[in-house]
C-alpha cells in the first residue's frame, strides 16, 4: 500500500508546490499508516529527485519515455496508473494546477477512483474517507465522501505549509507500457512568460480594479508589488479593457489563487471576483467607498483614494525595508 503523489517538474526542477504536495502526502500517509511514494516523469537529476526525501517521500519512481515528452494526458495517465497499480496506491494526490486538472479525471476513470478536487486540508476521516472541499466557488463547503478503494485528491496550490520530514529515500526506474494507438497532440509553438513571478506560485499578490481609473496609473501598483516580491493581478474589466494582460485576470472566470496575502486596490469585490481569491489567507482592501463589498472579505482595509494611498503605503514600506 502507498500514498502516491505526482511530482511534476519544470525543466528538471521541482517547485514549492511539489514539496507542498509531498508534505500533504506524508501526513495523509501517516493517517492511513502507509508509506509515501512519488512518481516523476521526464528527465530529473537524482539529486533533485532525492530532495523529495526531505518531505517524507521514501521512494521516488522515475520514468522517462519518448512518448511522454510532450504533454499527452492520455499517455501520461497510462504511465501513472501503472505506477499506482505497482505500488498498490490507495490514494493519489496531484496538484490542482493545469496538469493535475488534466490528469486527475483521466486517472479516476482508469483506476475507478472517486475524486475530490481542489482540496486544501487533510481528510476529516479515513474510513469512511471524508474530505472537505470548496463548492459554489466559495459560497459553501462540502464534506465529500469518496466511496472507492482508491482515492484521488487534487491539492490547491499554497494551501499546505511545507513540513520538513527527512526520511531515507530510494529511486526506482520504471518502464511504462504505452500504446501507439492515437496520435499525440503535436506542439507547434511554445511560449514562456520569462522572469515573472507566476500568479499561481506567488505568496503575495497585488491586484488592481477599475478604481485604478486608467492603465496609466499602474506604476505605483507595480512598485508596491516589486517591493513585496509579489505577483500582480487584476479584476476582469481591467483585462477586458486591455489595461493589463489576460493572464492577470483573477476570479471565477480567470485564475483562482490562494496567496498568503491578497491586496485588492480599487476592486469592488463582486462575488465572481471573490470566487477567485476567497482562499487567500489575508485580504487587504483599499477602496474609496466604505460600503464596497470587498470589505466584507477583507481582514484589513483602508478607505481612501488609491492614487493617494498607494504612494504613502510605498513610502512606509520603504522605511520598514530600510530598517
Amino acid at each position, binding site marked *: 500500500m502507498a500514498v502516491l503523489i505526482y511530482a511534476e517538474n519544470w525543466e528538471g526542477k521541482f517547485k514549492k508546490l511539489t514539496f507542498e504536495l509531498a508534505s500533504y502526502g506524508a501526513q495523509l500517509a501517516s493517517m492511513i499508516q502507509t508509506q509515501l511514494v512519488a512518481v516523476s516523469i521526464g528527465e530529473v537529476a537524482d539529486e533533485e529527485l532525492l530532495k523529495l526525501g526531505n518531505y517524507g517521500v521514501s521512494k521516488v519512481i522515475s520514468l522517462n519515455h519518448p512518448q511522454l515528452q510532450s504533454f499527452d494526458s492520455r499517455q501520461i495517465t497510462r504511465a501513472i496508473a501503472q505506477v499506482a497499480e505497482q505500488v498498490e496506491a490507495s490514494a493519489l494526490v496531484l496538484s490542482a494546477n493545469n496538469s493535475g486538472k488534466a490528469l486527475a*479525471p*483521466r486517472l479516476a476513470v482508469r483506476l475507478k477512483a472517486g475524486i475530490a478536487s481542489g482540496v486544501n486540508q487533510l481528510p476529516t476521516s479515513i474510513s469512511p474517507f471524508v474530505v472537505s472541499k470548496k463548492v459554489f*466557488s466559495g459560497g*459553501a463547503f462540502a464534506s465529500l465522501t469518496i466511496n472507492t478503494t482508491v482515492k484521488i485528491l487534487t491539492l490547491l496550490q499554497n494551501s499546505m505549509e511545507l513540513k520538513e520530514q527527512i526520511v531515507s529515500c530510494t529511486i526506482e526506474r520504471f518502464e511504462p507500457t504505452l500504446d501507439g494507438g492515437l496520435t499525440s497532440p503535436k506542439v507547434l509553438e511554445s*511560449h514562456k512568460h520569462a522572469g515573472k513571478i507566476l500568479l499561481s506560485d506567488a505568496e503575495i499578490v497585488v491586484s488592481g480594479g477599475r478604481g485604478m481609473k486608467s492603465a496609466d496609473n499602474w506604476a505605483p501598483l507595480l512598485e508596491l508589488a516589486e517591493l513585496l516580491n509579489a505577483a500582480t493581478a487584476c479584476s476582469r474589466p481591467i483585462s477586458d479593457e486591455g489595461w493589463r494582460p489576460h493572464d492577470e485576470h483573477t476570479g471565477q472566470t480567470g485564475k483562482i489563487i490562494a496567496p498568503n496575502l491578497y491586496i485588492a486596490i480599487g476592486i469592488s469585490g*463582486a*462575488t*465572481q471576483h471573490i470566487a477567485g481569491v476567497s482562499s487567500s489567507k489575508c485580504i487587504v482592501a483599499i477602496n474609496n467607498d466604505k460600503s464596497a463589498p470587498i470589505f466584507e472579505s477583507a*481582514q484589513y482595509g483602508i478607505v481612501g483614494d488609491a492614487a493617494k494611498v498607494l504612494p504613502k503605503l510605498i513610502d*512606509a514600506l520603504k522605511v520598514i525595508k530600510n530598517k
Partner: protein
Amino acid sequence: MNILVCISNVPDTTVRIKLADNGATIDNTGIQWIINPWDELALTRALELRDDPSSGVKQVSVAHVGLVGAEPTIRKALAIGADNAYRVNCDPADAFQTAACLASIVKNASFDLILCGIESSDYNGSNVGGMLAEMLDWVSVSGVSFLKVENGSITVNREIDGGRETLQVQSPCVCVVQKGIAKEPRIAAMRGIMQARTKTIAVSEWNGAESLTTVASYQPPKARPSCKFFDADSPEKLLEALQNEAKVI
C-alpha cells in the same frame, strides 16, 4: 465535423447559497438557473466555428445530464444557436456519473470534437471533460484558451504553468476550455428563441452508471472576522499589522 458541447445547469453565479435541512442539501428556492458560464463560452466558440464555412464544422449539438427541470437551460442553448440537444434523464451525484452518461450519448452518435468548460460553477470539480475522454479513450487537451478549426484540422492553445503552447490535435478529441476561448457569450436573438421551440431535445434514460462519491453534508463558508480599518494617512499601521499580527509580510 460535428461538435458536441457539454453543458451544466448551475445557479446564477451572483446567488448567495443557502443550506437546507441542517446542511444536508442546498436550498434551491428562488435560484435562477443558468448555463455554466464556461460552457456558454464553449458553445459560443463552437457556433462561431460552425458559422465560418472555412472551418468545416457542420453541426453543433449540446448535451446535458439532468432532470426535466433543466430543459429551460437546454432551450436557451438551442436559442443561442445549437442545432440540437441531448439530455440523459439522471440527476447526477458526481462527475463520474455525469461523464458516464455523456459517454453513452457520444457512443451512439458521431462527434469529432467535444468541448467542456474547465469547471462548473457549482461543484468546481474540473473533472467531467477528462473523465469523458478517458471513458471514450480519446485524446484530451485541458486548459484550452484558443481553438481554431480549419477544414477539419484542429489547432488549440493550451495554458501551462508559466506559459502557453500551440498544439495541433487530431480528432476525435475532447477540449476542456477556459478563459480566452470566446470573448463574450453569444446572446439569444428573438429569431433564435422562436427557432429553439422546434428544435429537438433527444432524451435518453439513465444507463445505470454509478457515482463514486457522495456529499455527506454542506457547511457555510467560515465567517471572516470583520475588517479592521486603518487611517489613509497612516499606512504604516497597516504594514505593522501585516507583519506582526497576520505575519504575511
